[in-house]
């Protein structure tokens, strides 16, 4: 844009030189001759008045187009960055919830189920122990019944001997013979009762043994089933954990890629700051072109000479950036200065 200004100034200077040259050529060819000074000044004013608004409009148009395009770019990049931030946040939350939340809760619930089965099996084994105790008690009852049978047999034998002795004693032992008979009858009844007890105890023992066998077989099956369930639950959890771990790895790679893209977009956006600077430079040039038209008009009226220094000094007062000043004094393009921070 500095080149545009130089061209404008050169053009203005050219008009002055042209006026002089036109006068010199008058004697050579069939030249119409120099314009009268007032007409020439008028034409310069007309020229400046005609081109300055067009140049200004073109500069403004460039500024607007650049501002719109860069604005759209920054909006788009900004949108991408926001989407990336959103995706990164939700991905991170989902992963943490998957590993520390859902997975741990599922493991806890499945563990509770297996614990319940274990507790039921433990209770069943305790019942089996009680049945074994009952069987032992039944055996004791059987032995006691047999003891009663033996006692009844000995009592019977004693009563028989007593009856024989009572018979030998004659009438004196008659009453004792009656007692002996009663004792024998009691012994017989005891023997019969104990025999029935032994039979019943044997039947109870058979029943308990049968129930015990069934229950032990069932407990063994359930124990196997619980152990299998425990193993299966652990295997499923291990599979899920492995899958979750793979998803986590994949998500971390995506996260790293997203962070990288976000950083690159951020750096690109930093570069787009040029728009603000270039916009201001163009604004200064536009104002100076308008000022040129005013100066040309002043020169035409004869109130002031058309002096480039006036226009350039005016331009210099508008500069806000150090590189604008450098370009102005050196006449070459100036590099953008590094950012500086001053704390007050």
């Amino acid at each position, binding site marked *: 844009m500095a080149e545009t200004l130089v061209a404008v100034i050169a053009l203005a200077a050219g008009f002055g030189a042209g006026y002089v040259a036109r006068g010199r050529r008058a004697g050579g060819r069939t030249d119409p001759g120099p314009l009268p000074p007032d007409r020439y000044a008028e034409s310069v004013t007309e020229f400046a008045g005609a081109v300055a608004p067009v140049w200004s409009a073109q500069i403004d148009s460039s500024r607007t187009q650049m501002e719109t395009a860069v*604005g759209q770019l920054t909006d788009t990049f900004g949108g991408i960055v926001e989407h990336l931030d959103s995706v990164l946040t939700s991905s991170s939350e989902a992963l943490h919830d998957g590993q520390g939340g859902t997975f741990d809760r599922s493991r806890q619930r499945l563990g509770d189920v297996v614990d319940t089965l274990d507790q039921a099996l433990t209770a069943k084994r305790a019942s089996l122990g009680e049945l074994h105790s009952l069987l032992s008690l039944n055996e004791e009852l059987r032995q006691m019944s047999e003891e009663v049978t033996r006692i009844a047999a000995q009592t019977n034998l004693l009563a028989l001997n007593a009856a024989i002795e009572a018979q030998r004693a004659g009438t004196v032992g008659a009453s004792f013979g009656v007692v002996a008979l009663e004792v024998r009858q009691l012994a017989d009844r005891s023997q019969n009762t104990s025999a029935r007890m032994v039979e019943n105890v044997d039947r109870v023992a058979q029943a308990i043994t049968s129930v015990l066998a069934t229950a032990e077989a069932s407990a063994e099956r359930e124990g196997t089933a619980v152990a299998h369930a425990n193993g299966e639950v652990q295997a499923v959890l291990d599979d899920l954990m492995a899958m979750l771990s793979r998803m986590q790895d994949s998500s971390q790679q995506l996260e790293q890629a997203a962070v990288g893209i976000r950083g690159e977009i951020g750096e690109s956006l930093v570069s787009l700051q040029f728009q*603000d*600077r270039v916009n201001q430079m163009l604004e200064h040039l536009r104002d100076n072109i308008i000022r040129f038209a005013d100066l040309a008009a002043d020169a035409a009226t004869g109130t002031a000479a058309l002096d480039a220094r006036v226009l350039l000094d005016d331009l210099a007062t508008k500069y806000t950036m150090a590189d604008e000043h450098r370009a102005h004094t050196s006449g070459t393009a100036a590099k953008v200065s590094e*950012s500086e921070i001053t704390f007050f």
Partner: protein
Amino acid sequence: MAKTILIVDDSASVRQVVSIALKGAGYEVITGTDGKDALTKLNGQRIHLIISDVNMPNMDGITFVAEAKKLPAYKFTPVIMLTTESQEDKKRQAQAAGAKAWVTKPFQPEQMLGAVAKLVQP
């Protein structure tokens, strides 16, 4: 709780660049398109820092800072001027208006975040 920063600049691209840098560092951001617009954003809400351009239409940055400092709620709010300007007299005017730092564009986000972290109250 995230700190809130008001960004005032007539350039949409600069507002966007500064916003992205600050949001990425966990700050909340509100924006104004010039000094006049920014004053309407100072409606009593808590603002921990202001970042303002200098050359803006309707109301320039230095006038805006001076006006903001007249409001009791923002009397002690730190201000960073973010501008293409490098003239010392402008810097002095900004300091007199109440600005705490002057950052020239084009800025690097790390530089800006460093200045922000230095000025935002913990």
